[in-house]
């Protein structure tokens, strides 16, 4: 559970004031909200948090969550409760590319542990850590529904399946060359099989 932050966090008023969606992101948020009856817009919480995470640097700061609360007209604590429940929301800053290696049964039967060790060695970080240059974070994930194409890892929206060491090398090289923040909401996902 690498992304967990326990206890009370600091809150920065200036940072909060500067937290505003771009017009494009706001449009996406409004579309999501339109999917629900007007008195039920809290329902948009999960998808809007995904948009916010992609928009504000790949993680949800207390200020970001407070901003989402104001848009969805809920108490900030309700957003904290939800964001901390689900594994896909990062509650602390992460690398641009978060590598999530599946470690459950079928992936383990097919060598997920070795993939994790290989990435740890290659990037010189442990699970839960971020590389010094801020490019990669490594996480382990529970079953990502890719058991027939195990082992696998997810980065942002992209699924990278049937992994071998060589494929991992190539995947990391490509992301490094690209050098951009990868989010679950990316439209330009590029799965590899």
């Amino acid at each position, binding site marked *: 559970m690498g992304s967990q932050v326990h206890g009370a966090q600091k809150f920065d008023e200036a940072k909060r004031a500067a937290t505003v969606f771009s017009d494009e992101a706001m449009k996406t948020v409004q579309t999501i909200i339109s999917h629900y009856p007007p008195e039920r817009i809290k329902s948009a919480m999960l998808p809007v948090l995904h948009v916010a995470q992609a928009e504000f640097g790949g993680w949800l700061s207390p200020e970001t969550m407070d901003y989402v609360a104001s848009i969805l007209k809920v108490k900030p604590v*309700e957003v904290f409760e939800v964001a901390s429940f689900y594994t896909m929301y990062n509650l602390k800053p992460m690398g641009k590319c978060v590598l999530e290696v599946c470690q459950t*049964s079928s992936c383990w039967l097919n060598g997920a542990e070795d993939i994790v060790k290989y990435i740890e060695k290659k990037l010189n970080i442990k699970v839960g850590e971020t590389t010094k240059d801020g490019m990669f974070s490594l996480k382990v994930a529970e079953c990502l529904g890719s058991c*027939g194409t195990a082992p696998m890892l997810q980065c942002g929206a992209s699924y990278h399946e049937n992994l071998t060491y060589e494929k991992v090398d190539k995947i990391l090289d490509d992301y490094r060359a690209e050098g951009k923040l990868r989010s679950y909401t990316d439209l330009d996902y590029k799965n590899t099989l």
Partner: protein
Amino acid sequence: MGRKLLIHNDKVPGINTLEVYRAHGGYASVEKALKSMQPDQITDEVKKSGLRGRGGAGFPTGMKWSFLAKPEGVPRYLVCNADESEPGTFKDRYLMEKIPHALIEGMITSSYALGAKTSYIYIRGEYFYVARILEAAIAEAYAAGWLGKNILGTDFSHDCYVQVGGGAYICGEETALLESLEGKRGNPRIKPPFPAVAGLWGCPTVVNNVETIAAVVPIVNMGGEEYAKIGVGKSTGTKLISASGHINKPGVYEIELGITVEDFIYSDEYCGGIRNGKKLKAVVAGGSSVPILPTELILKTAKGEPRLMTYESLSDGGFQTGTMLGSGGFIAMDEDTSIVKNLFTFARFYHHESCGQCSPCREGTGWMEKILKKFLNGTATESDVELLWDIQSKIEGKTICPLGEAAAWPVAAAIRHFKHEFLEIARNKKFVDISHYDRLNLIRA
């Protein structure tokens, strides 16, 4: 070759687009339903078909639909459970990714039957790219008039939306899914009331698995009776099986319910046997939560009859010698697999996924994982086996939702059938990982 009703067109180029899907007979069920059938007739056909929930529990779908409360002036909802997260299961992802319109067609036809003006597809957040595929398909369907106001000129209007989750296995439990859809923590609700009476936003709601909804399409097209002719006994129709583990051909297979397990594992049409000429050791037949069975019990029942891929045959013998069809997550393990270590990955999974609402699951799942870790460290004692057994028995049946059972059953089954492996580690004070990772070894060499 068995008949296929759901993914028969999966290899057709462009089948993800409306144009190609339509050219292959797509949306015929919507036409048939809206133009020539009353909503209740569709429910009757689904009842006649004998279709059972494909998410894992196997509850008769027609019966579930008929429980839906229909008070005047209160909206009703259909929610598709696309939160596929049961380890070993990836069939819904395959279906949605390859043929998204099959699900959307099912959503429209089913919504018409249930009188739902709005439906939601709740898909697990990790499948974000699949959600994009579904959204694109929905946009196509709107543009072509299959969704929206007055579909096919009738007075049936329908809106269908996709919602992504945030990463939580528990949201596959239908009431947790509804909580999550309402923008809350995925804590399962205490039942009753059931969703059919008070579901999404307190309104009557039906929650069905992706495959279940997709199966409504062929049922409407061919008629419930015709559909029921496929299969054996109360296991009618076809089922998607996600096959993984140490088999030659992992992947998603659509089978006619009733083929033998042996045929499924060893025939070239399906899994193609065990990799590298190894022997089969054990199978988890229906997703991580169902009891693991050793080879002799998965191929034949305790009575010596061939085990079939049906709800009834797989559960023959109860949990003493049987298992469950579950979600159809079929994980095969070869002779070099450590059952204890595989169990550890399951225990870690359930510990990670417990929502924390009720005490037996919150505390018990973590405890079991810690004890299993002792086995991997070689520090376990023989009494730890008894302790594990006792803990799982105190979780099973004592929790709010079925995650308690899902966490307890694999532990119980592993001890029931493979106790000697636990005892051996405890006696030798040493765990030797005998598993092989052949694909990776190729590269190392």
